[in-house]
């Protein structure tokens, strides 16, 4: 019964530490207009709008879809607001896809954003709450112990994290929208950067960005735009409880189940061999080898060996984050959608200088919370 659904337009802002030239509405509209232009559509062609972002406290604007409705052309239309923690950019795209796949709408605009400079994410993540231990550490402090656990389990040498930090930043040089452009970065500069949360150094952490991402999703009979569509071959979300004895936060079951579901839908049995490129949520360097294992690109304990061998480099056999990834741009709510969007750009052949030659099948992955929320899709150049 489900209709086929494809990405027919993508748009994103230039991600920066402070977009003080625009309001939140101006920023999301910038991405949305770019996506409409890419799809060769206007506001009136859109049936519904799905917007997503991370916690409202990041900007201090409660349920901001109400305020953003006119800027996103949603007046008179259905509008949904998704919030699934850091995976939200991906989940938002998936909710929009359901509106098309169900046959309810023909063309849906989906937008995700964060304007981190309007507030302080570290503060917003650490508000003391009754009956809960304060985090007081932001995301890096939360994830660092899990990275240590991964290093211990896998026996990975210390330099793997630095390799990812360098690789993704050098990739970002070829992405004009990336927040960080660090052409001089090398292993030494990463190693000499300040220790933030052992073993994570400053240059192994994502930046704090303002930015937005937008896509137009369409049904098979409503395609448009100058680039070929990126067909959705598989899509899934998974969640698991935040804490319980025995939960494996290094290699979460929800991530494994989510990828297994998506691969089954897309007919993928060997992701490393069958996928041409992957855009994966790597906010801290070590999450590349960790997710390589979680996503089944290699056996358990071997993720770091792929990174070390250059398999995930731009010229490797399975490039990861040719856009520069979350390590180069992190407008939190949009970071997941950017993964989905960059995967679509690759199979549409519109990634410019960071285009992977002949990319036909791509994975977009987003995760959030304390690694308990996952959203993924596989998009392809061929119709499923």
């Amino acid at each position, binding site marked *: 019964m489900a209709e086929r659904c494809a990405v027919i337009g993508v748009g994103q802002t230039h991600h920066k530490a402070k977009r003080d030239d625009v309001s939140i509405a101006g920023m999301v509209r910038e991405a949305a207009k770019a996506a409409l232009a890419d799809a060769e559509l206007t506001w009136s062609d859109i049936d519904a709008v799905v917007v997503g972002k991370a916690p409202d*406290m990041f900007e201090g604007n409660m*349920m901001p*879809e109400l305020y953003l409705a006119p800027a996103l052309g949603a007046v008179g239309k259905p509008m949904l607001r998704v919030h*699934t923690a850091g995976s939200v950019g991906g989940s938002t795209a998936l909710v929009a896809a359901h509106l098309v796949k169900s*046959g*309810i709408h023909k063309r849906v605009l989906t937008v995700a954003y964060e304007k981190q400079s309007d507030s302080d994410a570290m503060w917003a993540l650490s508000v003391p709450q009754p009956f809960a231990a304060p985090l007081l550490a932001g995301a890096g402090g939360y994830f660092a112990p899990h990275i240590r656990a991964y290093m211990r389990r896998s026996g990975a040498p210390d330099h793997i994290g630095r390799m990812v930090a360098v690789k993704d930043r050098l990739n970002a040089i070829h992405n004009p929208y990336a927040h960080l452009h660090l052409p001089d970065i090398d292993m030494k500069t990463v190693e000499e950067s300040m220790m933030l949360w052992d073993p994570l150094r400053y240059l192994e952490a994502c930046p704090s960005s303002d930015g937005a991402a937008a896509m137009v999703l369409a049904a098979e009979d409503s395609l448009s735009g100058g680039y070929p569509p990126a067909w959705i071959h598989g899509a899934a*979300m998974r969640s*698991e*409880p935040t804490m319980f004895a025995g939960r494996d936060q290094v290699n979460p*079951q929800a991530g494994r189940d989510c990828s297994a579901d998506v691969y089954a839908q897309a007919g993928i049995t060997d992701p490393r061999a069958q996928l041409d490129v992957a855009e994966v949520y790597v906010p801290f360097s070590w999450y590349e080898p960790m997710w390589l294992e979680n996503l089944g690109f290699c056996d358990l304990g071997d993720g770091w060996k792929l990174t070390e061998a250059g398999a995930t480099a731009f010229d490797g056999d399975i490039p990861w984050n040719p856009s520069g990834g979350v390590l180069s741009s992190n407008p939190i709510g949009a970071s997941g959608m950017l993964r989905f969007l960059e995967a679509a750009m690759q199979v549409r052949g519109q990634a410019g200088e960071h285009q992977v030659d002949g990319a036909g099948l791509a994975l977009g992955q987003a995760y959030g919370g304390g690694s308990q929320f996952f959203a993924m899709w596989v998009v392809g150049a061929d119709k499923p």
Partner: protein
Amino acid sequence: MSPAGRTVRPVSIASFAQMQNVRRDDEHNEVEMLMPVVAEVFGTIGITKDDVDFICSGSTDYLIGGPFSFVMALDAVGVWPPRAESHVEMDGAWALYEAWTLLQEGEVDAALVYSFGRSSLGDLREILTLQLDPYYLAPLWPDTVSLAALQARALIDSGKSSEAEFAAIAARSRKDALANPKAQVAGDRSVDELLRDEYVVSPLRRHALPPITDGAAAVVLAAGDKARQWSDKPVWITGFDHRMETHSLGARDLTSSPSTAKAAEVAGVHDGPVDVAEIHAPYAHQEVIVREALGLDDSVRINPSGGPLAANPMMSAGLIRIGEAAERIRSGQAGRAVAHATSGPCLQQNLVCVLEGA
């Protein structure tokens, strides 16, 4: 239903449960509030969480005053092994809409929808100000009651309603709530008596305002064989839509609700007679606006549950309207019902769900 004339897959409201609505629940956290509700919504139809394919919730961080309030709430269900799950920062009625779209695809047959909110934790009247345009409106701190009062004044000035009608709506709602054991505010007071209440913000007197409510609610949606297995008398969603209006209050005619009218048209409210309507009009005067937008005549029974004037749990009051409307059909009191939910200042966003018996 859709622009393409899509065939709607029948989806039933298989089960509905809600917490006892209270002014302030100091004894339970969000998980503890939800756990009995989730247990009840499964238990009344004899199923477990393993029988649903998808979970979707609605809540807002601004009630608890911290980020990710939905994260721990998921423990009320216990998603192990991991489950397909999503969350909207909206009333649970929209979470139900998201789950319904998934069921429309035909690949899964059952979903759990829940929502929760402790409105009592902060100063709700001020907190809701943060929904406003953060650059031009929120810094002026127009509070939610004052904005509703502006709308009520415009309605009186337009000649469409009166303070006496507001009082009549409040009197009827609280009287009906006497028969609703889950209601927070119930009583039998005459219109004349209510009109002697003091103004909170003119022209809104105390009775025309909703109570501040802590609450939670849950619904199980089912399609296909499961819908018939889980109920002898399924209540079907036969039409469903929601629409947004512009944010700028000055650009809207506050005495009408074109978004409700549009959603009603798309959902097919007028394709048959309406016996009962559960309207999410937190302020008494808003019932007048929504009723007109839905095109309901005087024969339609409005808010037999007492409606949001009897209990207005933030983020659940809309979902409860759908559940209450379904219960009227299940009990045989109605054959066809309309449920409405709203979000934002002065009815900015509205949802309409049409329900029918077998």
